[in-house]
């Protein structure tokens, strides 16, 4: 900071020294000044865009603290006059927080673990081995990314429904439709959310592991499984973290497929938030005296939204580097 002020003083002196000093200064420092100006423009632009990015989130957080009087008060734009945390308490109750938080974490973790394991195994085969039909299969794998979900989902739903009927599994017994069983089975067979991308990340990373290591392992008599475990997996822990994190987040945010298979069977943050309006009347006033029913206002909804993304935000700020570098280094760029 001090050096900056000194610099400014020097510049001012230079300009004051003689007639037309400013022009002279510009002539001699043309490149520097131009670069400074362009840099300022770049920063202003980036900050503006960043503002647009976070605007909905900031608005959401600010509204979530507002009382109902603040909401209609035209003077209140960003900062509420009185911060209330009661919105969060109500929202937590409507979301059935303690149940749905646990469920969301539990099932996202389970699916993410399954997806990571299967993607790693599949990626290993595509990256290290040459086999008949590899090119076709790999192309088909990549192509499968662009197939819209509904066209698969309709038949998948029928298949599972048939399958469960034959097994005698019905939702109420904790198996079958209305539970996560279908998605767990699909994840087990490498067909979870965005599986193609996860496999692609692994393939690209495994290809970078030097072949010498495998040669050395083979000379020492390692079996393919040992090569996979001791060399591939142990060298790619960072990639595994990346894939796990992405899978976790995608499974957490997945709403359409979950809505088909799970429906109302299990309370999750996403489906509770999706039905917030209809859940509100019955749940918000629970334990309150009669005639004291709460009105549904925006603040509650915003508070609920904040609650439901807080776990993801925590995850992002902890694993922020992994997320960005995961896409960067392992290159979905597809070369």
């Amino acid at each position, binding site marked *: 900071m001090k050096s900056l002020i000194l610099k400014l003083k020097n510049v001012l002196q230079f300009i004051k020294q003689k007639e037309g000093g400013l022009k002279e200064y510009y002539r001699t420092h043309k490149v520097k000044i131009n670069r400074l100006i362009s840099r300022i423009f770049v920063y202003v632009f980036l900050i503006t865009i960043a503002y647009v990015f976070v605007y909905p989130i900031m608005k959401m957080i600010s509204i979530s603290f507002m009382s109902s009087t603040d909401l209609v008060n035209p003077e209140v734009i960003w900062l509420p006059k009185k911060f209330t945390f009661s919105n969060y308490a109500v929202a937590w109750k409507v979301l059935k927080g303690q149940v749905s938080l646990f469920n969301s974490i539990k099932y996202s973790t389970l699916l993410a673990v399954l997806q990571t394991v299967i993607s790693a195994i*599949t990626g290993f085969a595509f990256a290290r081995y*040459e086999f008949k039909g590899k090119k076709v*299969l790999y192309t088909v794998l990549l192509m499968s990314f662009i197939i819209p979900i509904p066209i698969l989902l309709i*038949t998948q739903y029928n298949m599972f429904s048939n399958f469960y009927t034959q097994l005698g599994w019905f939702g109420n017994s904790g198996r079958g439709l209305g539970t996560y069983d279908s998605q767990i089975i699909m994840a087990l067979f490498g067909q979870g959310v965005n599986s193609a991308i996860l496999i692609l990340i692994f393939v690209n990373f495994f290809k970078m592991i030097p072949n010498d290591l495998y040669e050395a392992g083979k000379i020492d008599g390692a079996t393919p499984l040992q090569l996979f475990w001791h060399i591939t997996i142990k060298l790619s822990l960072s990639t595994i973290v990346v894939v796990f994190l992405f899978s976790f987040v995608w499974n957490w*945010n997945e709403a359409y497929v979950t809505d088909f298979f799970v429906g109302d069977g299990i309370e999750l943050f996403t*489906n509770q938030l999706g039905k917030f309006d209809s859940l509100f009347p019955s749940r918000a006033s629970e334990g309150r005296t009669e005639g004291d029913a709460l009105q549904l206002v925006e603040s509650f909804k915003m508070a609920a*939204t904040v609650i439901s993304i807080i776990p993801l935000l925590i995850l992002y700020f902890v694993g922020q580097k992994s997320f*960005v570098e995961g896409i960067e280094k392992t290159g979905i760029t597809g070369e």
Partner: protein
Amino acid sequence: MAKKDMVKTLTNVSTIENQNKIAYLFILPWLLGFLAFVIYPFFQTIYNSAFQITSAANTLVYEFNLNVNGGNFGTAFRNLYFFPQLLDFIVMEATYVPTIIIVAFILALLLNTGNKGQSAFRVIYFFPVIIMSGPVAGILRYNGAGSLFDYMNNIIFKMLVSYSPRFASALSDLFANFTMVLWFTGIPIILFINALQKINTNLYEAAKIDGASSWQILWKIKVPIVKSTGFIVSIFTIVQIGTYSLNPIYNTIKGSIYSTAGGIGLASTFAFIYTLVVFSLVGIAFLLLGREPKSKVIHLSSIQRASLEAVHLKRQSVNKGKVNES
């Protein structure tokens, strides 16, 4: 022939093992899942679209109806919601995807200049990828948090409305959801930055020596090289917008499964038509961005070459003269 084979085996320093059976074992779970949960459902759903399917006593009854009034396809065309929604979807893709690609490319360029604090910006630009789920985006959009500008009173916009209402409504949708559009750029930005960083900086040096301005460097070097990434980004964006759970078509398809009039057959038809649309969008993206540029080969006659060389020599001598003068 034998010699050829031997040369081949000697020179073929493969970095990949040739143990097919083991590879099949590794790939088996995915392959089974792929056959059962992608290939089979894909074709089954297409097959379904030709039938009126009713469920009786837990079994599905198929009744061929393609010969009556165009069957499910006829019903789909006559459906009040489906085709307007499909049109909306196409307009949405057509406006969002180019915007996302251009904005992501510009941001990637600005984030790749080596200024300070760029990683902080990258963190901000990437975070929507993490939190954007259907319900969250739905609530934010519903509450108008997605729109920023008061574009409706803009004179240019008013002129547009009177000139072409359809174009204006597409544009207004884009502006109304501009934040949401930006939220799709998280991964494209990273992909573009990645592609830009891979460009050999010697190319810039060479271009500068030849007197190219930074504008020319952008158009003649960066854009052509990044074009292939642009194709991947466009596919990614098309799919992302499609799977975005606010997509109204998804709900129409889902709703028609349970309706008595439509059933699984009609839902399959909707899904099939929708899939065709998505595929053709990807096809258009491929035509626009995916093809390798043809390199031009110019054949010069000996006279032309000689004259070019003469010009070159002349220039060099002129330049030398300049240097000597100064």
